[in-house]
């Protein structure tokens, strides 16, 4: 009874074990609700599970998975490099307007730019990478600038009293001091990249990928396969999120010291 009361109390911290139990229970409830409400247009979990088995066992699944992963990772790495460069340089006044412009590019729709990017790039792979980068970088830069602009002025003053010049201060406070938050931004944007991958894969289907599998399943109204593919994409996304989260705690142990547990 006490436990039941505690899970409805705001700001209550429950043990890790109880939280896992709570998650499992809510997941089972959601699956039961899905099973009971399904059967019409939406396939039931059992049908999705069967489709999942078929998809994973299919001949070209590994190739498609590899195509999506490699595209995402390649797009992410290039985006991170570009976004970090723009964001770190934004601390130097002459580069700040460029960073602000990139931030505003969030409001440019990708669909309207596909034609332009098709002209600029030489093949489907380049087109997909370019769109992925263009889609991620503005969000990445927005988050990074928000981190940097939120730095307490006293940290900069501390550097001044420790006789650091402006370059050393920039390196200590903005670069080193915010590496953990940069990693967190990267983790969040990986989710955006993973979300976008299925959209851009449809632009050039010759390389395959999970997005192509989705488009084909949609085309032939194979809803079990659509849901099965979505479950794979979801599970992989959650897995990446977990791995990156663990890596952050391992690389930056101090990040866990000031959070509610």
């Amino acid at each position, binding site marked *: 009874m006490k436990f039941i009361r505690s899970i409805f109390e705001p700001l209550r911290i429950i043990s890790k074990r109880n939280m896992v139990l709570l998650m499992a229970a809510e997941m089972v409830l959601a699956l039961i609700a899905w099973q009971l409400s399904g059967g019409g247009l939406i396939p039931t979990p059992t049908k999705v599970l069967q489709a999942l088995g078929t998809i994973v066992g299919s001949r070209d699944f590994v190739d498609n998975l590899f195509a999506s992963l490699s595209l995402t990772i390649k797009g992410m790495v290039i985006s991170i490099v570009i976004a970090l460069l723009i964001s770190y340089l934004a601390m130097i006044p002459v580069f700040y307007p460029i960073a602000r412009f990139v931030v505003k590019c969030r409001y440019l729709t990708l669909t309207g730019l596909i034609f332009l990017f098709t002209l600029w790039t030489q093949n489907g792979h380049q087109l997909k990478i370019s769109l992925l980068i263009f889609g991620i970088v503005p969000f990445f830069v927005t988050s990074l600038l928000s981190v940097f602009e939120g730095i*307490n002025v*006293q*940290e900069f*003053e*501390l550097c*001044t*009293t*420790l*006789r*650091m010049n402006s370059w*050393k201060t920039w390196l*200590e406070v903005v670069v*080193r*001091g915010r*590496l*953990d938050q940069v990693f967190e931004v990267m983790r969040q944007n990986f989710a955006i990249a993973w979300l976008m991958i299925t959209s851009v894969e449809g632009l050039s289907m010759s390389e395959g990928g999970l997005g192509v599998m989705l488009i084909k399943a949609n085309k032939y109204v194979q809803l079990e396969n659509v849901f099965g593919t979505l479950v794979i994409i979801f599970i992989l996304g959650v897995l990446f999120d977990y791995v990156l989260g663990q890596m952050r705690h391992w690389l*930056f*142990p*101090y990040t866990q*010291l*000031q959070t509610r547990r």
Partner: protein
Amino acid sequence: MNTYTKQKVLLKAEDVNLQYGDKQILRDINFSIQDIHREGVAQGQVVSLIGRSGIGKTQLFRILASLIKPTAGVVNIEEDQHPVQAGEMGIVPQHYVLFNHRTIYQNLKIGLDNAAVKLSDAEKQQIIKDYADTFELTEHLKKYPAQLSGGQRQRVSIIQQVLTGNKFILLDEPFSGLDILMVDKVINLLLKVSTLHEQNTLIIVSHDIENAAAISDTIWILSTEEGKPGATIVKEYDLCQMGLAWTPDIRSNPAFVSLIKEVKSKL
């Protein structure tokens, strides 16, 4: 009676004014700190700047550290009386800002890394070890700032500034939020730092009159004068001259008690 002499001027503020738009914050601030000599002691200087909340103490503090420029006036320091430059005065802010991504050892080392005197890594390690022993921080050297208590963070913050080689250290509300036992520890720490070097000068900005006065050799009162805009130093007390400096158990001294009453009345 403590015998002492006051020699060269170490810090001098001349006609310092600060104005934001039409609002005068500080007006005609003038003071100086002289090097105090006592036989057998490397006696540094401890000055308290007392004033009510919001009077402009922190702004004066930032001017002294050259973090902001005054609208008029100048602050000169050291024996050659050159205008103070940012980085020549250490600051220990009220919330003891440290680099949270660095361990305590690294936080202290960064002070030495930027010191005027260049040292080898082995020398730095030895100095940090010595200071950590003296100020009871040895067991915390591998920890991160978030793992320390407020008092421990304050010690690290002060030593970081000392290791940088700053002889002038400004402390913003060093007794704020500490219990009585911790206040005693901080007082001992400040006295220890002030006697590490002849020219070490601590300027304590506080509204805790009794504790600040108990370790000071000079008190400045920052307040407003009737009919005049902005705050200024309305009174300076030379505790050395009054025989109230460097005295243990000063709090029970009737002259000290009446001094505290008088200071309160001036605020």
